[in-house]
């Protein structure tokens, strides 16, 4: 059954209802596997899965010890993808990420320059504490994340699909960090905030990690299936009023528009079209995961914060007033009628 999904997807046929149902089933299984190690954090897990199926990247923000790295590693095991991790530090160079040309000696003893791929050549990349690297190194990810390729010595090297970057950053220790530039932030489909676990979840975490042996993760889907699922996702229809709602939300984040006073007062820059694309694509994935074949307004509202919170830049007044991007976006959404 798994193979059939991949075959049909590669054949480029019209996605069918069973494929959508299969997608939902597989993702439910992946979610189940992840939940063996990750307690709670359902929104984060769903966000990661949605971004994986939508073909985007995820920026995880949370305090140390909340399981960000474990989530990425578990996901890599559940989807049977190649996984690599880069610990970003201030002295990390771009070549350390994307690779470099080195002198290689072949069997004949001849020496030649050969490309040594960096850790970015993988399916699932964990860029841990990405904001600790210099902007030069951070920007090394730009081409890889958007174009799915890297260029070294005038030679472009394609990355293997699916290519999925999960970056983490610590919001507490800001000293010695380099905040991600807006251009790179816009490359992330979602910015997910990893919250602290609740009481029940904390009990569960203690029970699982301090007793017995850790559970093993069974791979559920592979890379090709994920690519097919991405094809299915794009076939999900969107009603005109839902798309209009997305446009309204996106435009409402622009400070130069007169539709919403919140943006003109607190926003320095609004969302790019990537934000609207994110809302629609994420809504499609969410609809499929929910067993529907259409995007609803509820999907859009649910994805509003992770999709747009890192795409808007607040001005000084917002910071002075103690306003955050999340509450401002919620205020905008509350004022915009979907009809």
């Amino acid at each position, binding site marked *: 059954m798994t193979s059939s999904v991949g075959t049909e997807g590669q054949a480029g046929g*019209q996605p069918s209802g069973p494929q959508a149902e299969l997608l939902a089933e597989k993702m439910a299984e992946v979610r189940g596997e992840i939940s063996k190690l990750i307690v709670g954090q359902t929104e984060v897990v769903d966000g990661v899965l949605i971004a994986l199926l939508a073909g985007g990247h995820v920026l995880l923000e949370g305090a140390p010890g909340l399981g960000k790295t474990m989530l990425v590693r578990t996901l890599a095991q559940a989807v049977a993808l190649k996984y690599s991790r880069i610990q970003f530090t201030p002295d990390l160079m771009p070549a350390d990420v994307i690779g470099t040309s080195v002198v290689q000696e072949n069997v004949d003893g001849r020496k030649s320059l050969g490309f040594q791929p960096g850790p970015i050549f993988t399916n699932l990349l964990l860029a841990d504490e990405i904001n600790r690297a210099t902007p030069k190194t951070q920007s090394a990810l730009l081409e890889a994340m958007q174009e799915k390729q890297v260029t070294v010595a005038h030679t472009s090297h394609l990355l293997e699909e699916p290519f999925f970057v999960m970056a983490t950053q610590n919001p507490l220790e800001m000293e010695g960090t380099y905040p991600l530039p807006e251009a790179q932030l816009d490359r992330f489909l979602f910015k997910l905030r990893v919250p602290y676990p609740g009481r029940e979840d904390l009990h569960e975490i203690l029970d699982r990690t301090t007793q017995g042996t850790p559970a093993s993760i069974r791979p559920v889907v592979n890379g090709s299936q994920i690519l097919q699922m991405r094809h299915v996702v794009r076939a999900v229809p969107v009603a005109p009023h839902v798309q209009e709602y997305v446009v309204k939300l996106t435009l409402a984040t622009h400070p130069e528009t007169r539709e919403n006073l919140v943006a003109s007062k607190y926003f320095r820059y609004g969302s790019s079209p990537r934000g609207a694309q994110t809302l629609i694509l994420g809504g499609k994935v969410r609809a499929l995961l929910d067993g529907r074949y259409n995007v609803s307004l509820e999907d859009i509202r649910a994805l509003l914060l992770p999709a747009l919170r890192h795409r808007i830049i607040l001005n000084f007044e917002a910071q002075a007033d103690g306003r955050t991007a999340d509450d401002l976006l919620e205020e905008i959404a509350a004022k915009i009628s979907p009809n």
Partner: protein
Amino acid sequence: MRLGGKLNSTVPGGPSGTVWLSAPIAVWHRVTSWIPTAAVEKRPSFSPVADRREYPSELSILVRTLNTVRQRILANALLRSWTRWAVWILVGLIAIGAVLSKVAGPLVLVGVLGTTGAAAILIWTWRNRLPAYEAAQRLDSVAGLKDRLPTAIYLGGVDNPDGLIAQQRKDAVLRATKLDPRSLFPVRLPTSVGRALALILVVAGLFAYRINHKPPLLSLLQSATRSQLIQSIFSPLVQAIQKDLERAVALVTMKPDSATADPRRDDSALSSDDLWKGGDEKGAKDEQQQAADNGNEQDQLQAPPGQDGAPSPDARQEEGNSQSQDENGNQSASGNSQQQAESPAAEKRQSLGQSLMQALKNMLSNSSSQQANNRANQQPSGQGTPQSGNSHQPGATEGDKRGESRGSSDAKQKATQTASEGAGSQQGSKELHKDPNPHSINAIPDRVALEASGFKEQTRMNVETETGTAQLASRDQSTQGDAVVNGAEQETIPARYRLYVQRYFEHADDGKR
């Protein structure tokens, strides 16, 4: 010449003929400039397309469900609009029944208006009925189907769908068959129905009442107008206004001949001629009072005992009025008879405008008589000015003010007598000098004024001054404008010369103005 033309001619390059519409045109442009912007910014709605579309048979159940929803929403909208309209019509009926005495015509008009409005509401509501796509959105939101139904309507135009589109349609139809639109969209009476029913009862009761009664609001207003409270509030105002109107009308319509012919008119409505004459009359009245002192007029001496004591100024004035009227009628008082014999010819020459002006001054002086009285009491030295002769012109001039002050005092009263009566009054004055009669207690106020003005009667006035003389302040308001001259000097002045002097000072006063 039109105002626009005037502006064009007076202000070159100024507002043109279209300037009068520039402001509303600017407002209209400002309003309409938003309309295309909004139309451009808002994506064309899918609803009209969805209404014109032929839906496939697999969506027939969904379309039928949506039609039911649309009908119910339309019915609710119609009920709501009709009820609101009915409320307004009922309010109109109440107004008609409460105000109008004849209601047949207005009832027909209201009936036509109500029917036309109801028809217009029907047409308007039908034309703006909910499209199928929006009905699907409503039904979807009520049923919690997460936009399955509008998406299916949107996808209804796809022929031979496959894949997720067909799956989506099937899913939507499956969900729609489980819905009961009648329970989700019941036809409800609008909330204003209770208000309308209450108004219906009121209208029914009102028209039942109207069968045998007048319009209640009119009756209420009439009864309120008759009530003492309203009258107590408004009657002083009404009387004051009415009095002023009567004065004005009398002054405008009065002619010198009629003024001469009817010396018994009210003082307040006297023209300048009347003022002369009125002054004469009052002079006659005062003369009679003096005559009562002097004993020249024996009938005056036979006044009731109550008047010999200390009658109020008004009472004495009334008495004087009656007496002077009697005297005028009998031509018995020498001063009055002489004045009245000479004045008609002279008064005819006075213009109506002068009369009106003088009367208006008199009216003004009436309102400020009390203040002038106070001034007169505080400034006794001004009472000597009557000798100048300027004060025979009442009004705003200083001489008039002094005349007012005199008029509010006893001195003024005396001076008025002497000036207006001419020889007759002088005769009385002379007799005052001669007569030490104790009956002169009635003329005490006159003597008080003379004392202040330094006349030769001053010695006597010192003797005769009593309290209560200032109460005569309001008595001589109409005589303020009369010349205050020594009666002895005026005794031999012919009436023509007196008229000449009067006109001379009138012209002088006009020049000042």
